[in-house]
């Protein structure tokens, strides 16, 4: 598994340098340079949204810093949560005087560091709330949704919460919207081939030449089953079946769907997958609104895809349509 990199120890910082050089709307900040924020700075009077997570998932997390989305993002090393200082910096830099929502994926390290950052900031009087992405249905039953991992569906929570904050909503309201968006999102992934951490000698997992893993996590965490590769339509069918068997309460008749590549999967294959997913949703009489197909949340060179459903009601639909702009997603 070859990589186009320099010293693994500089992987994250070099990639962040490239990212901010390529996209002037993003700026590096924080004591260790491990915060990405909107270059124009904080919008005073707006509720701030701080996210964060391990590196290796571009465009997530840093790529979604922008108008109508998130304000700041703390970045850890590859597959490691951001450290406490970066979380403190990200929260501070997101604060426009009306409090900060911490919105990130449900992983142990990320939670501990964002929690400790909140404790550090208590004295400064920055009000903080927390909403965790928990959309991966392969990581826990419907009775333990709060313990599920957060994966690609997090971007829907960014979108909804970002739109709410942009409209001037207060911290409670933005937090409510983010929690509602998370509750309305379900994702399942499938892995065909692993990635390798820049510092690791071996790939993060192994799959035989004809094997795939259903339900894999975005760090290669174990999934639901491993078995022979099958046609894309059969894979899409199982993913949709599982998603539709795990409907949120109050699910309506409209969804947005994200067919997401994990990094090394060509667009051609994502469209083949989307074609079938779309057919199955049509058959289920679910109206598809603003679909997304592409690499939105990756695991470096992992091969595979995920499918997310964002179950819409009028409120979420309006928030999904609200203008937003970051280097990797634009709604206008």
């Amino acid at each position, binding site marked *: 598994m070859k990589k186009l990199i320099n010293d693994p*120890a500089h992987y994250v910082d070099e990639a962040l340098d490239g990212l901010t050089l390529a996209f002037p709307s993003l700026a590096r900040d924080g004591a260790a340079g491990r915060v990405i924020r909107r270059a124009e700075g904080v919008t005073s009077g707006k509720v701030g949204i701080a996210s964060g997570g391990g590196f290796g998932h571009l465009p997530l997390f840093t790529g979604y810093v922008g108008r109508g989305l998130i304000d700041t993002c*703390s970045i850890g090393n*590859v*597959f*490691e949560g951001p450290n406490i200082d970066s*979380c403190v910096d990200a929260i501070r830099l997101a604060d426009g005087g009306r409090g900060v929502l911490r919105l990130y994926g449900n992983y142990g390290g990320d939670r*501990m*560091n964002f929690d400790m950052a909140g404790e550090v900031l208590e004295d400064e009087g920055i009000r903080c709330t927390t909403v965790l992405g928990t959309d991966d249905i392969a990581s826990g039953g419907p009775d333990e949704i709060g313990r599920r991992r957060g994966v690609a569906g997090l971007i829907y929570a960014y979108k909804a919460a970002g739109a709410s904050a942009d409209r001037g909503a207060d911290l409670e309201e933005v937090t409510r919207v983010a929690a509602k968006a998370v509750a309305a999102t379900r994702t399942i992934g499938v892995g065909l081939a692993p990635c390798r951490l820049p*510092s690791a000698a071996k790939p993060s997992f192994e799959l035989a030449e004809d094997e795939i893993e259903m339900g894999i996590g975005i760090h*290669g965490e174990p999934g639901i089953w491993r078995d022979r590769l099958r046609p894309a339509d059969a894979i899409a069918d199982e993913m949709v079946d599982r998603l539709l068997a795990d409907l949120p309460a109050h699910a309506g008749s409209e969804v947005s769907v994200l067919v997401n590549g994990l990094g090394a999967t060509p667009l051609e294959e994502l469209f083949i997958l989307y074609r079938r997913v779309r057919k199955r949703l049509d058959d289920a009489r679910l109206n598809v609104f603003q679909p997304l197909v592409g690499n939105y949340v990756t695991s470096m060179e992992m091969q595979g895809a995920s499918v997310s459903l964002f179950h819409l009601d009028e409120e979420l639909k309006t928030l999904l349509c609200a203008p937003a702009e970051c280097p990797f997603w634009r709604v206008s």
Partner: protein
Amino acid sequence: MELTVFQIAEGVSRAARAMAGLEQELNAADAKLGDGDTGSMLARVIGAMAASEPQAAGSVSDVFGRLARAGMSATGSSLGTLFASSLLGLSKQTREWERVDWEDLSSLLAAARDGMMARGNAKLGDKTVLDALDAVAAAVAGEVDAEGAARAAREAVDRVILEFRGRPCRMGRAKFFAEKSVGLDDPGMLAFVALTKAVAELPQNAT
């Protein structure tokens, strides 16, 4: 006998040296159940701790504080954060102490264990680093010097890793696939075991 800054600093540098040989082994153990980064993360964290000049600390509290801050800057991973934040707890706890003795080690480790439980919400028996830490805390109770503590710690980690191997992980990334973890060592526990052995060196020719 007094537990000295020098001894702690020595332990850190032994741990740092050991990481060279452990990094890929721990990555591989984590790859089976989690995301494959335990080894590289610990190599970086312990490297940063060794580079924080622990030997120059003025007190045991100070050395714990240095190590904690170095670790906290170096990672936000579950295990690294738990290690670093519990070291910060120990630093606070010993701030006013005039000296720390080897006899205090057991209760300090127990305090670290409790801090980690509070921060990470895991329980004993979940097959995490906690169970190994708990075993060592219990084993070194009553030991009054480096050699006794080392011997007891080594025995304890050998025991605990075997004891848990056949049990399922109930915390961390492996928690939802508990059955898959049966027969596999938890990477955090494995790391603690290996580092304990590196740190708790026995005097030459001892067994």
